[in-house]
């Protein structure tokens, strides 16, 4: 806490400050509102379609479905890739570990858009096959998030007590078995909140699909606003849809974290290497 329980004078000062702050914020809101009103952005026509056209919501629903499909494929494939890369990086064999480190670091440092372009632009020219925008997006998401998830899982495995590994090796499990059936299940449980937070990043990143023509929520919104000529209203609605989903996921992460803390009686969640914020 940066301030004490307040006495009468401090309370009065806080009240005055709060009122001044509120007035300033209200003025700011007023300036924005006036500007929008002057430009006719509160005209009913710009909003009517949201109420009167059920088709608009059908279209947005289709877009949202595609967004969620890409996120789901991306999540599954990225988790598998992440586990493989994490095991590779934890391997004691140099020829496995060094490439795994290189792959993880390279894909974490490359813009996701570039990876998506790589699949979308390079496959027709190099391999002669034209892949669907959905798959270019999913493969890009897989590589980038796989690298991030690998680091999350590795941090989780390294946070486990050494006794787990020692006991597993002592009962005669191989290193692979130790990783797969003893360490991984515990690491995933510990890192579940971080993994859910990464899902928020993944879901937001599916909107990059609109650049390569994948009909996800943002692209559908773009088509609709060209027709309705209401970009502000349309994009605010789309932003609200994303915010609602992501706030729910954020809540879920906090809930899982709290439950773990309650069960194990301490803060067990470990922060991975500061992950990137797509």
């Amino acid at each position, binding site marked *: 806490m940066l301030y004490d329980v307040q006495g009468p004078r401090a309370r009065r000062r806080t009240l005055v400050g709060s009122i001044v702050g509120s007035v300033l914020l209200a003025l700011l809101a007023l300036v924005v509102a006036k500007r*929008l009103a002057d430009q006719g952005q509160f005209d009913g026509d710009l909003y009517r379609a949201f109420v009167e056209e059920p088709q608009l919501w059908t279209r947005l629903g289709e877009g949202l479905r595609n967004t969620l499909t890409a996120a789901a494929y991306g999540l599954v494939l990225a988790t598998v890739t992440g586990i493989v890369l994490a095991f590779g990086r934890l391997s004691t064999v140099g020829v496995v570990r060094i490439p795994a480190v290189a792959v993880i670091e390279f894909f974490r*440092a*490359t813009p996701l*858009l570039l990876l998506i372009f790589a699949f979308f*632009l390079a496959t027709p020219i*190099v391999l002669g096959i034209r892949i669907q925008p959905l798959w270019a997006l999913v493969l890009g998401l897989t590589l980038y998030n796989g690298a991030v998830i690998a680091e999350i899982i590795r941090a989780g495995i390294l946070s486990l007590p050494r006794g787990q590994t020692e006991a597993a090796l002592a009962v005669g499990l191989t290193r692979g078995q130790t990783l797969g059936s003893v360490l991984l299940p515990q690491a995933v449980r510990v890192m579940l909140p971080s993994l859910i937070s990464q899902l928020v990043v993944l879901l937001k990143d599916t909107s990059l699909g609109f*650049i390569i023509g994948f009909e996800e929520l943002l692209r559908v919104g773009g088509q609709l606003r060209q027709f309705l000529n209401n970009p502000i209203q349309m*994009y605010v609605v*789309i932003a609200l849809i994303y915010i609602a989903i992501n706030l729910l996921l954020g809540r879920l992460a906090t809930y899982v974290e709290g439950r773990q803390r309650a069960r194990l009686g301490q803060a067990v969640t470990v922060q991975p290497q500061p992950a990137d914020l797509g």
Partner: protein
Amino acid sequence: MEAVVDNLDLLLEGFLRTLTLTALAATGALCLGTLVAAMRVSPLLPLRWAGTCYVESVRNTPLTVVFALAVFGLPKAGLGLTFFQFALLALTLYTGTFVAEAVRSGVNSVAPGQSEAARTLGMSFPQTLGLVILPQAFRNVIPPLASVFIALLKNSSIASAFGVAEATSRMGSLIEDNPSAVLWLLAAVALGYVVLALAASLLFSRLERSLAVAR
């Protein structure tokens, strides 16, 4: 290979644009984020509330949607800017939320004795925050801030879809002109980003070391 060498000046120009965009947005986001973090830890309820609203809404919106709102929405509100300025605005607003969260966690990580001591000396809240807490908080959050700014560098590639001729956009048009060199161009630009990201993380870890305090 030739396509990369022949067009090296174009690519470098693109990366210069990327760097300018990133540096300006980072400066803006640092100021905005620090201000919002200060609002969120202040005793003034309306400011705390406004800060939380901004962070929670913008952070959960995809950057592409922020871009779309700026580029297509603002002209409708009578605000005509260049594509570069729109991109700068979108990146600053988006990155500001992550800076705010990082700085806020830094403020919370400063030992409570510090603010207690400052209050005992009779410092007001702005003095406590500005002179005692924030200087220590920044020191603690250099690693997370570094990853925020590296993410910003990578995110600036989205500006290519909104009319800014930065590195990724230059790459796109070069691929159109030289389809056979697609792999070389992709590799060269990816390498450019990796080098910039590495340079940034080296810079920040040096900064961290030079600001470190033995406790």
